[in-house]
Each structure stands twice: as structure tokens, then as C-alpha cells.
């Protein structure tokens, strides 16, 4: 990543880090129980939930990888991001009220808790805990490397000191304040990201000479690039529509936020608001990639060595310093907001979900061990990211698809369908882990690639859904507990 070499940009980032630190101190005083640590004591208002949901879903991938994908392949990746307008409302529709009400009826703090309540037995929640730990490790590794790269570029320091600084702040507010700190830093971050997206869109239109001029340049370069499917083609684009459109319902860092709402009636407008807010964030994803590619095609900017440099280079060369500073802070914010959500999910899986599935009860002094597990996960992920780069890259691509194909069938369909069984749940999660891992691994090592560029995660999602429903219908009917039965019937 290029060096920013600007005191104003450095100041914006330092102010942001100090803000996170302050929120951590404030949140620490509000975190007294494991319910506070994992679900913010179910005390959040709708604005916090909406903004925290979109900022944790957007992540560093949205602010760096998204513009990079557009720069590289044109419109293809827009099918990932524009579908969020219905995917997040679909998540509210399928799981929102049921997960939130489940927290009233039972001591449910996590997705594996919800799976245990829905299906009983130890295997469904154990498998779900395992899927979450695997996905979290990969996601965390990629986010941690991104934190290091951004701070290195902004502060002009080596990777290790940059990582130490960034992870130090992240560790402090995640360990001390749990998800309370996470969601309030998400709120701060999300507002920054929304502002940055609109400002960057306007700046892109100004620099590129308007959307028609940008499109004309790109059409002259390659009509497929700016066509509706981009250079990856229609099958890949549609598979992304499916994976991101339906798969968002299965992202634990998004749907657990719905369990934190203080009043379930606030869900009424939250579904629409998350879709609209995400559509606003999509403007940055689209505009930077297209504008940078048009500038390169006009020979107004040298070709990029790495597509992921599209966003940082645009900010450094074509935006006012203050806007660049705010967007760099927003970029760091996006990465850290996702990282803190995953730290919390990973800690819950290690301290609560897996021990409960194996021993029948969570660990004693759960809050203490949750804080310890958060720190340990951060150190472990940093170690993996620094020294096991290939494993992290594999797990990073594996994350979204695994969550989607493990959680959509067993939670999103299972919470709405009385006939769903534990065997269906276990089979679909196993299908999800095995298919995602084996297909990603074989594609990375040139052993086998799916035809027509269809996304691995989309294939896994469809297969896991069919397996879940098929196995449920073929296994003996199970009678859910009264509260679960009432919840499904709601």
C-alpha cells in the first residue's frame, strides 16, 4: 500500500483510534455479565442496530476489496453489493423476530445456543460452533492483516509496530467492553462510512467527468467490462447474487445484532433502513473502482500493480486531504468493526457454545473466560495471519460461504419450519464445511475448478439447503418444546 505522508490524514486516523479507546473505557463500565458481553444486555436502540449491522457486514473487504474487484472485473461484483437491499430485510423476515423472542424464552446468547434450543441434542450446536470457529479464524486473519496494512500506510511505520498499535486498540475495547464497545464503535464507524460513501461518489463523478464520460471510456476499452455482468460473466454474477443475497441471512455478525434490540417492535422499520443504508455504502464500492479504471484507460493514471490499491490510490491522489483522512479512518473503522464482531463470536464459540455442547454447561465465570478468549483469539489470528498466510487466505474465502450454507438452512429455514430435524441440521452443516473447504482448496491448488466460474459458496448454499430439507423429510419427525413450537408458529 502507498504511504499517505500527510499530517492531516494521520491526525484523522489517530483521532479515530483515540475515539475507539474512549468508547472501550465507557463500555467497560457497562459490561457486568456475559449477556452484556455477548448481546449488549439486549439494550440497543434501532439506530445502533441498523448502523452496527451494516458496518460489520461491509468490512474491509467492502472498502478495499470491493473497489478492487470493480477495478479488475467491472460490473460483476456489483451483484454482490446491490442485492443487500433485499438480503438484509430478508434476514429480518426469516430470523429477526424469532431469534429476538428466543432470547426472552431461553438463556440464548449466540447462534449455536439458538440451534441447541431449536433441535436439542449436542451435535447440532457442536457442529454450528465448529463452523463458526473456522469461519471466524479466517475472517479475523484477513481483517488483522488489513489493519496492519492501513496503519502502515498512514503512519509510515513497519508492519509489526503497525499491527501492535492497531491490535492493541482493538484488543482493549473488545476485551474490556465486549459487544457493547463493539456496537458503539460500529455506530461511530458506520456514520463515518455513510458520509464517506456519498462524498467519494461525488468526488468520483467530478474527477471522472460524470458517469456518462466514465462509461464511454470503459465501453471503448471493453464493452463487457461496463456491461451488466462485467468480465466474470453472467453465471458468476448470478451466483454472487445468490450467495450474497440469500447468504447475508446466514452471517452471524449481522443476525446476532437483531438479538440485541431492546424492543422487538423496533424491527418494523429497521429492515428497510439496513437495506437503504447498505445501498448508500455500495456507492463507494462502485464509484472508486469504475473511476480509477477509466483514469487508467485514459492514461491519466498509471496502471495499478494490484487492484486492491484502487481505493487507497484514489483517495491519496484525487480527493481533498480532509476527505482522504476521513475515508482512511472509515476504512480502518470498517475493518475493525468486522474484526470486533468476529472476536466476540469466536469467544462465544470457544467459551460457551462448544463447552456447552460437550459438557452440557458453559464454563464457570463466563465473563472472565470470554475476555481471556477474546485476547487469545486475537493473538492466535495475528500469528496465523503473519506466519500461515496460505491458510488464512483459504479460510478467508471460506468464511462467508460457510456461514451462509451452515446457517441459512439450519437457522433461517429451521426456525420457520416445524418438520426440520436435528439430523437435517447436522447433515447440512457438514455438507457446508466439507463442500466449501474441499472446493476452495481444489480450486486454489488447480486440482478442480467449478465450471462457468460459478461461486463455490453458492454451490454449497444450494447443496446444503437441499440436504437439510431432504434429510429432515426422510428422518422421523421430532416434537419441538412448547416454546419452540410457539416460536415457529408465530
Amino acid at each position, binding site marked *: 500500500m502507498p504511504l499517505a505522508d500527510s499530517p492531516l490524514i494521520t491526525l484523522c486516523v489517530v483521532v479515530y483510534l483515540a475515539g475507539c479507546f474512549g468508547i472501550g473505557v465507557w463500555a467497560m463500565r457497562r459490561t457486568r455479565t456475559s449477556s452484556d458481553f455477548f448481546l449488549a444486555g439486549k439494550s440497543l436502540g434501532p439506530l445502533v442496530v441498523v448502523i452496527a449491522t451494516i458496518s460489520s457486514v461491509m468490512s474491509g473487504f467492502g472498502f478495499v476489496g470491493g473497489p478492487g474487484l470493480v477495478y479488475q472485473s467491472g*460490473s460483476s461484483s*456489483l451483484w454482490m453489493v446491490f*442485492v*443487500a*437491499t*433485499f438480503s438484509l*430485510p*430478508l434476514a*429480518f*423476515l*426469516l430470523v429477526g*423476530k424469532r431469534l429476538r*423472542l428466543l432470547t*426472552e*424464552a431461553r438463556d440464548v446468547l449466540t447462534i449455536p445456543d439458538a440451534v441447541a434450543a431449536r433441535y436439542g441434542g449436542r451435535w447440532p450446536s457442536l457442529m454450528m460452533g465448529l463452523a463458526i470457529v473456522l469461519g471466524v479464524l479466517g475472517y479475523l486473519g484477513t481483517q488483522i492483516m488489513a489493519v496492519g496494512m492501513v496503519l502502515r500506510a498512514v503512519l509510515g511505520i513497519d508492519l509489526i509496530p503497525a499491527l501492535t498499535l492497531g491490535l492493541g486498540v482493538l484488543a482493549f475495547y473488545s476485551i474490556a467492553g465486549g459487544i457493547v464497545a463493539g456496537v458503539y464503535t460500529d455506530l461511530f464507524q458506520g456514520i463515518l462510512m455513510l458520509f464517506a460513501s456519498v462524498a467519494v461518489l461525488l468526488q468520483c463523478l467530478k474527477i471522472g467527468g460524470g*458517469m*456518462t464520460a*466514465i*462509461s*464511454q471510456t470503459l465501453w471503448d476499452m471493453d*464493452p*463487457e467490462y*461496463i*456491461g*451488466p*455482468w462485467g468480465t466474470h460473466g453472467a*453465471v458468476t*454474477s*448470478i*451466483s454472487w*447474487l*445468490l450467495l450474497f*443475497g*440469500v447468504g447475508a441471512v446466514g452471517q452471524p455478525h449481522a443476525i446476532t445484532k437483531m438479538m440485541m434490540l431492546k424492543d*422487538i*417492535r423496533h*424491527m*418494523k422499520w429497521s*429492515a*428497510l*433502513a439496513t*437495506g*437503504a443504508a447498505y*445501498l448508500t455504502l*455500495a456507492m463507494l464500492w462502485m464509484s472508486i473502482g469504475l473511476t480509477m479504471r477509466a483514469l487508467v484507460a485514459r492514461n491519466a493514471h498509471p496502471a495499478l500493480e494490484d487492484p486492491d490499491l484502487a481505493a487507497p490510490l484514489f483517495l491519496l491522489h484525487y480527493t481533498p486531504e480532509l476527505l482522504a483522512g476521513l475515508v482512511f479512518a472509515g476504512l480502518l473503522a470498517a475493518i475493525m468493526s468486522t474484526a470486533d464482531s468476529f472476536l466476540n463470536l469466536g469467544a462465544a464459540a470457544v467459551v460457551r457454545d462448544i463447552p456447552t455442547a460437550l459438557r452440557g454447561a458453559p464454563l464457570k465465570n463466563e465473563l472472565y473466560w470470554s475476555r481471556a478468549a477474546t485476547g487469545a483469539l486475537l493473538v492466535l489470528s495475528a500469528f496465523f495471519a503473519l506466519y500461515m498466510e496460505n491458510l488464512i487466505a483459504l479460510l478467508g474465502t471460506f468464511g462467508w460461504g460457510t456461514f451462509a450454507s451452515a446457517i441459512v438452512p439450519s437457522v433461517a*429455514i429451521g426456525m420457520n*419450519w*416445524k418438520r*426440520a430435524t436435528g439430523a437435517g441440521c447436522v447433515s447440512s452443516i457438514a455438507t457446508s464445511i466439507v463442500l466449501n473447504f474441499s472446493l476452495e482448496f481444489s480450486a486454489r491448488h488447480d486440482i478442480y475448478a467449478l*465450471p*462457468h466460474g*460459478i461461486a463455490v459458496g*453458492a454451490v454449497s448454499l*444450494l447443496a446444503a*439447503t437441499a440436504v437439510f*430439507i*431432504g434429510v429432515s423429510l426422510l428422518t422421523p419427525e421430532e416434537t419441538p418444546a412448547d416454546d419452540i413450537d*410457539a416460536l*415457529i408458529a*408465530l
Partner: protein
Amino acid sequence: MNGNRLPAACAVLSVAGLAVGLAGRSLLFGWCAIILIALLAALGFGKRLSRLAAAAIICFGSVFCLLIYLSHDLHAPDGPLIPFAGFPPGTAVLVYAIGPLGLLLGLLYALAFDTEILPEETLKVFLDRFGPRK
């Protein structure tokens, strides 16, 4: 309404989607994906799905299928660019129609919340039976 029919239809659509996707039939793959999304939305409404909400979901799915077809059909890479609001026509369908169309699902959720998603009386009965202190 939920019985086994909607989940069974989701399973059939998933298998069909896999088959047409792996065969490279992009338009059919898109339609399978959209019908699956519409079925999941209907599943989320549960037994209180009204005819009006069902009609709205069918409209959402039908318009979405039509827009996917238009994205295919309007893309003419061999001719000159004839932009619509700054984009080639097929891309404009994605940016100006498919993106905002999704918001209708959020709007439907809000409009149906008090009557079909979570009527106040239903919430009260559930909390009285299973809520805290019970």
C-alpha cells in the same frame, strides 16, 4: 401455509439451481435464484401470510425475473454505447432498478409488521407464556 410445501419447493429450486448453474444457463439460474428468494420471503411470513402480502411477493419475484431478463436482453456489446442515465442500458437496469427494487421487501416488512409479522396480541400471548419470570 408453511406445512412442508414451501420448504419442499425450496429444495426443488435448490437442486434445479445447482443443475442450471453448473450447466452455465445463466438466465435460468437467475430465475431459480429469484424464485428461491421469493419462497424464503413467503416462508418468513409464516402462517399469517395474507393474500395481499403473497401477491406483493409474487410481484417482487416477477419484476425481479423480468429485470434479470432485461439486463441480458439490453446488453449489446457490438454496437455503440447508448447510455441511460450514465450507464449502458443493461447495467442501468442493475443500478437503478434491481438495487432499489430490493427495498420493496423492507417496505413490505414494515407495512405488514403490525398485522402479519408480529401483531401486538400475538407478542403479548407469547411473552405471557414464555417470557421472563414465567
